[in-house]
C-alpha cells in the first residue's frame, strides 16, 4: 500500500517518509540535491524529511508544524508521529487547535508551515458529520468508493455502526448521533491507513458511546490503521489509546503511554495515575469526573 505525501504544506513543500512509500525513490531521483536523504520529495523546498520517517512504519508524521490565523498562533512547532497501526488519542481544551492539527494531517490546510507526511489513504470523521444532504445515507457512504459493489459495501458499513435500517434515509432526517455514526461508517468503509477522528462520539449517549468504543477498537484491530482520536474525554482516551497526547499552548505538552491491554476498565490502577497527570496538564484538579 503506497503511502505518500498528499499535500504540500507551505507552498510546494512535500516530504514523505521514503520507507513508507515505494514511489519516493523515483521522486528523490529527480531531486536537485536540496535533500540529504532519499526521503525528500522532488518538489520539496525544505529538506526536512525527518530521519525517523525513513525508519519506516509511520502512518503520519509532522515536524515543526506551525499554524496561525490572522497572526494569532494556534499551533507552534508541533512534532507528532503516529506509527502505522498505533492508536493515539489527542486531548486538549476547546480551541487548543486539535481540529486544526487534524485538518493539516488530512491535507485540508495548505497554509500551515512545517513538514507533514501522511498516508494518502487518510480518512476523516469530522467534528460535525458533514453528510451531503442531497444524497441518501448509503450514497454518502459509497461516494467515491470504487469497487464492484459500492452500495453493498456502504450498507455493510452502515450495518456495523447499527444504521442498516437508515441506509435509504435522507441525512437531514437522521438524529445527531445517527449522523455521527454514518460519518464514522464513511471513514471506516475505506479501510484507511490513517484514521482521523475528530470527537466522533461527541453527540452520542453514554450507552451508544460504549458500543462505538468497542466498534472502533474492533475495526482498528481488524485493519490496523494508525488512529488519531481527538476527544475531550480523558477516560475515553485512556480506555482506547496506546498513547495519549495533550495539546496545549500550540504544542504537544504531554504524552502518556498506556501499556495496559484492552479491554480496559476505567478504574484500573494503571490508569489512575495517568488520569491524574493528564487532568493536571489540562489544568483540572482531579476531583470531578473530567
Amino acid at each position, binding site marked *: 500500500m503506497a503511502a505518500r505525501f498528499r499535500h504540500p504544506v507551505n507552498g510546494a513543500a512535500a516530504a514523505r517518509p521514503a520507507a513508507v512509500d515505494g514511489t519516493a525513490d523515483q521522486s528523490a531521483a529527480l531531486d536537485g540535491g536540496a535533500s540529504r536523504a532519499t526521503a525528500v520529495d522532488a518538489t520539496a523546498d525544505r529538506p526536512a524529511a525527518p530521519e525517523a520517517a525513513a525508519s519506516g512504519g509511520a502512518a503520519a508524521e509532522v515536524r515543526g508544524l506551525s499554524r496561525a490565523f490572522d497572526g494569532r498562533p494556534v499551533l507552534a512547532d508541533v512534532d507528532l508521529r503516529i506509527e502505522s497501526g498505533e492508536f493515539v488519542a489527542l486531548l486538549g481544551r476547546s480551541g487548543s487547535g486539535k481540529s486544526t492539527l487534524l485538518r493539516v494531517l488530512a491535507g485540508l490546510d495548505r497554509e500551515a508551515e512545517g513538514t507533514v507526511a501522511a498516508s494518502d489513504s487518510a480518512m476523516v470523521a469530522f467534528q460535525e458529520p458533514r453528510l*451531503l*444532504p*442531497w444524497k441518501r445515507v448509503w450514497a454518502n457512504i459509497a461516494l*467515491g468508493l470504487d469497487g464492484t459493489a459500492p452500495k453493498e459495501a456502504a450498507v455493510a458499513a452502515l450495518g456495523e455502526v447499527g444504521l442498516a435500517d437508515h441506509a435509504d434515509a435522507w441525512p*437531514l432526517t437522521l438524529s445527531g448521533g445517527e449522523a455521527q455514526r454514518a460519518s464514522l461508517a464513511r471513514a471506516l468503509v475505506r479501510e484507511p491507513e490513517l484514521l482521523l477522528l475528530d470527537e466522533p462520539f461527541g453527540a452520542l449517549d453514554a450507552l451508544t458511546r460504549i458500543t462505538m468504543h468497542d466498534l472502533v477498537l474492533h475495526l482498528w484491530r481488524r485493519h490496523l490503521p494508525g488512529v488519531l482520536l481527538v476527544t475531550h474525554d480523558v477516560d475515553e482516551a485512556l480506555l482506547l489509546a496506546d498513547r495519549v497526547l495533550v495539546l496545549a499552548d500550540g504544542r504537544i505538552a504531554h504524552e502518556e503511554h498506556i501499556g495496559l491491554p484492552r479491554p480496559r476498565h476505567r478504574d484500573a490502577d494503571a490508569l489512575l495515575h495517568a488520569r491524574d497527570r493528564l487532568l493536571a496538564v489540562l489544568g483540572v484538579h482531579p476531583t470531578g469526573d473530567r
Partner: protein
Amino acid sequence: MHPPATAAPPRAPATENGSGAPPRRPAVAPRRRNRLLDRWVSPIALLVGWQLGASLGILPERLLPAPSTVAATALGLLQDGSLVDAVGVSLQRVLTGFAIGATAGIALAVVVGLSRWGDNLVDPPLQMLRTVPIFGLIPLFILWFGIGETPKVALVALAVTIPLYVNTAAGIRGVDPKFRDVAHVLRLSRLGVIRHVVLPGSLPGLLVGLRLSLGSAWLALIVAEQINADAGLGFMINSAREFLRTDIVVLGLIVYSLLGLITDAFVRLLERRALVWRRAFGTR
C-alpha cells in the same frame, strides 16, 4: 404567484381551523378542498361580471369582447389550425433560445463558481450586462442579425442566460466549503466534485434562476415578436390589431399566460422532485 394550497405542508390547514379545536386528521382533507374552492370564487365572479357586462352592452365589444366571443374565436382558430401553428412557431423560438441561454448560463456559472480566474474574468462583464436593459438591445440585434428568427432567439437566449447565471453562480458560491473538504478527503475527481457536490448543492439557486429565466424568456419572446414577425403568436396579435380583432388580441394574451403557467408548473414539478431531500426534512 400566490402560494397554492397544494404546496402548503399538510399540517397548515389543521392550524387554520384555529378556534381551539384539536387538529383532527380526517378534518384536513375537506378543508383543503374548501380552501381551494375559496380561491376560485373571485376569479369566477370577475369572469361572470365580464360576460354580463359585455352581454348587456356596458363593455363595448370593440374594446373588450365577451369571454364567450373569445372562446368562440379560440375554437375557430383551433379548428383551422392557425392557432396551433402560431403557438408552434413561438414555442420553437422560446425553446431554442432557452436551450442556448440555459446552457450558457449554467456553464458560465460553473466556470465562475469553480475557479478564481473564471470569477475574475467572467463575472464582471456578466454583472455589467445584467444592468443593460435587454430590450434596449433590440435595435442592435436587428442590425446584427437581421429580422429573421435569429434576433428573436438571441434575445430569448440572453434573457435566459443572465438570471440563470446569476442565481446558479450564487448557488455554487453558497455551497458550504465544508462539503468541499469532504470531497477532498474522499478523493473525488474534479468532475466528481462538480457532479456530487457543486451542482446538487447549488440546485436550489439554479431552480430559482430557472423559474426567473423562464419568465423572462416569455417576456423577451413577446417583445421580440411585437417588433417584427411573419409568424407566431406575436404576429397573430399584431395583425389582429390592424383588423381591430380585439378578440384575437385577448386570445393571444391568454395563450401567452397559459404557456407561462405551464412552464412555471413544470419548474415547480422539477423543484419538488429535485429537492426531495429538503422536503424530507421539512415534513419530518
